C-alpha cells in the first residue's frame, strides 16, 4: 500500500521517539531526519533505520523534498526556529506538524478537533504541550455536556522527562497550556500548573483536571462522557488511564489521570513525551488518509 513520505526535524529524544512510531504506521513512511550536529546520535540512529539524514538543518532537506516526495514534516526543534522551518517547507507544499510551543498554526488535540483541521486543509497544526494533550480531552469531556466556567489542570512530570528547553522557558508551558485549556477544552477561563518531581524510580506522568461548571454538574452524563473520551485517547495512547474520579464536589468536577508511555525510545514513565509523539503521529495519519484517498491535495503556500 502506498504511504505518505515524512521528514522529522530534530533528532533528539522527541524526534527519535516519533521515528519509532512512524515506522509502525500503515500510512506514513519516515524518509528524512534533519539535524544540525554531524555527531548527533539521533541522526546516526535514523541512518541505521534507513533514513536519509542531513546535519545542515532544514536547508539541507529542501533540495530533496520534490525528488523524495516528502509531504509531511514534523518539527521537534524549538519555538525559536519553527516559523522559519515551517515557511520554507510550506512553500514547497509540505504540511507541518509542530511539536514546539511556537503555535503559529491552530492547536490540534486529536480526539477533539483533528477532523476539522483535516477538513480545512491546514498547512501547519500545533500540538499544544504535553500537559495540554493529556488534559484538554478531559476538559472537553465535561464542556460537551454542560457549560464550564473555569478549567484548571495540574500536570506532574518526572524530572528526567523535562528537557532543558522546557526548563529554560517554563512560562511558555503554563501560558500555552492555559490558553488551549480554555480555547480547545471549551472553558471560559483556563489555568495550568506544572510540577516537576525528581523521585526515583521516576513517576509516571500524572494529570489532575478540575472543572467548575456553571450549573450543578449532570453527574451521570459527565461520567459517561469522561469514559468515552478516555477510550478515544487510548486509541493512540494505550497507557492513558483514569486513576480516580470524576469527583463531584459542589460545582467542581475533578478527574485524575495517569499517562504511561509506550516505551518506544523514551522510558515508559515519560508519558508526557509519548502523548506528544503519539498525538502528532495520529494527526499526520489523519491527513495522510485524506491524501491517499484523493480528498486532500497539498498546494505550495506563498510565504
Amino acid at each position, binding site marked *: 500500500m502506498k504511504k505518505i513520505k515524512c521528514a522529522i526535524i530534530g533528532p533528539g529524544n522527541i524526534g527519535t521517539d516519533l521515528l519509532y512510531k512512524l515506522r509502525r504506521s500503515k500510512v506514513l513512511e519516515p524518509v528524512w531526519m534533519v539535524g544540525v550536529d554531524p555527531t548527533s546520535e539521533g541522526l546516526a540512529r535514523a541512518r541505521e533505520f534507513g533514513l536519509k539524514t542531513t546535519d545542515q538543518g532544514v536547508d539541507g532537506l529542501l533540495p530533496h523534498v520534490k525528488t523524495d516526495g516528502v509531504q509531511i514534516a514534523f518539527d521537534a526543534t524549538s519555538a525559536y526556529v519553527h516559523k522559519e522551518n515551517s515557511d520554507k517547507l510550506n512553500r514547497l507544499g509540505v504540511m507541518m506538524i509542530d511539536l514546539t510551543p511556537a503555535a503559529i498554526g491552530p492547536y490540534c488535540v486529536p480526539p477533539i478537533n483533528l477532523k476539522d483541521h483535516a477538513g480545512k486543509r491546514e498547512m501547519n497544526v500545533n500540538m499544544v504541550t504535553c500537559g495540554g494533550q493529556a488534559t484538554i480531552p478531559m476538559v472537553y469531556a465535561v464542556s460537551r455536556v454542560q457549560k464550564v466556567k473555569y478549567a*484548571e489542570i495540574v500536570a*506532574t512530570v518526572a524530572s528526567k522527562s523535562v528537557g532543558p528547553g522546557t526548563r529554560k522557558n517554563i*512560562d511558555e*508551558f503554563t501560558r500555552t497550556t492555559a490558553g488551549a485549556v480554555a480555547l480547545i477544552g471549551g472553558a471560559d477561563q483556563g489555568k495550568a500548573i506544572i510540577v516537576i518531581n*525528581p523521585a526515583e524510580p521516576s513517576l509516571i506522568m500524572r494529570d489532575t483536571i478540575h472543572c467548575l461548571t456553571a450549573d450543578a454538574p449532570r453527574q451521570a452524563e459527565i461520567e459517561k462522557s469522561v469514559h468515552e473520551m478516555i477510550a478515544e485517547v487510548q486509541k493512540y495512547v494505550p497507557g492513558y488511564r483514569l*486513576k480516580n474520579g470524576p469527583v463531584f464536589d459542589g460545582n467542581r468536577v*475533578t478527574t*485524575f489521570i495517569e499517562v504511561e508511555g509506550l516505551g518506544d525510545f523514551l522510558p515508559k514513565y515519560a508519558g508526557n513525551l509519548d502523548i506528544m509523539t503519539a498525538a502528532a503521529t495520529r494527526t499526520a495519519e489523519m491527513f495522510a488518509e485524506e491524501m491517499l484517498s484523493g480528498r486532500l491535495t497539498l498546494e505550495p503556500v506563498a510565504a
Partner: protein
Amino acid sequence: MNLQGIKIKVHDMSLRDGMHPKRHQITIEQMRTIARGLDQAGVPLIEVTHGDGLGGASVNYGFPAASDEEYLRAVIPELKQAKVSALLLPGIGTVDHLKMAADCGVHTIRVATHCTEADVSEQHISQSRKMGLDTVGFLMMAHMVEPAKILEQALLMESYGANCLYVTDSAGYMLPHDVTARIALLREKLKPETEIGFHGHHNLSMGVANSIAAVEAGARRIDGACGGLGAGAGNTPTEVFVAVCNRMGIETGVDVFKVSDVAEDLIQPILDFPIRIDRNALTLGYAGVYSSFLLFAQRAEKRYGVPAREILLELGRRRMVGGQEDMIEDTALTMARERKEAAAAHPAT
C-alpha cells in the same frame, strides 16, 4: 559560639505562609493592620501573597479573599520602614506576575523551586535581577537531598542572578546539624557577597533552634512568622526567635515586646484553629512532608474516612514535592478504595 553583635535580617512570613492555615482568607484590612504592626515593631521585610505565591489562586491550592495585586497595593503604602517581598513558584506563577508585583512596589522577589529543579528559575531570577529587585533563590524541601546537591542547585540560581540563597525546610524535618551542614557549605562556596537565608517550620519544635544553627553557620536572613502563623505547625515564631536573638546578642532591629504584641493582639484573634504541633503537624515534620498539605489531608480525612496521618505518611513514602496538593485527594480516594476492597475480601467473622 559567640554571635554577639552579628546583624541579621528577619523576614516575616505571617502574611504569606500564614495564608495556608487561613485558607488564603486573610482580609485586606487584616493584612493592612498586621503589616502596620510589624512595621512599627521594626520588622524589615514582610512577605505578602497567596500562600503558594504569585498566581497561586486556584482550585488546587485555594482561591484567596483578594488577589495578589489587591493585597500588595493595600499593604505597601502602609509601611514606614519595612519592605515587602513576593514569592513566585515557576510552574505556578510567571514573569507576568513578577512584573505586576514589581509595579506594585515590591522590594524583593523570591523564586522558589524544589531543591533539585533550580534550572526552571532562570527566566524569573534573571528578570527580577534585571529589574533591580532584591532577588532570592529559594530551594524548597531541602531536607530531601544531600548538602552537595543543594550547593550545586544554589550555584545555578546564583549564576542566574540571585543575590541571596535560601535553604528551605518546607517540611520542618531538619534537625540543627542538617541545617548547619547545608548552610555552612553554601557559605563556604557561594560568592562572599551572596547572602544566605534559612526558612524553617516548627513541626518538630525546631524552628528557633534551627534558625540559630543557621546564623552560626553563616546565614544572615532568617524567616519567621509572627505568632507562628504559617503552614503545618507554623514557621519559626518571629517573636520567640527575636527574644532568643536578644539574649544571644544577635542584632535583629526588631522590638521583642512590640512584635509579641502583634502576635497576641492581631494574629491570635484571627486564627481559625490554634496553630500547634498536633498529631498531623507532627507527622509532617517526622515523615518529611510539605507543610501546606496539612489542611488538605484533614479535609480528605473528613470526606473519604482515611486518617490524615496515614494519607500524609503515604505522600511522604511517594516522595511528593511542594505543589502536589492534587495528589492528596487522589491518594485518599485510592486508599479508601483499597480499604473497601480489602474489607470485602476479608469480611469480619
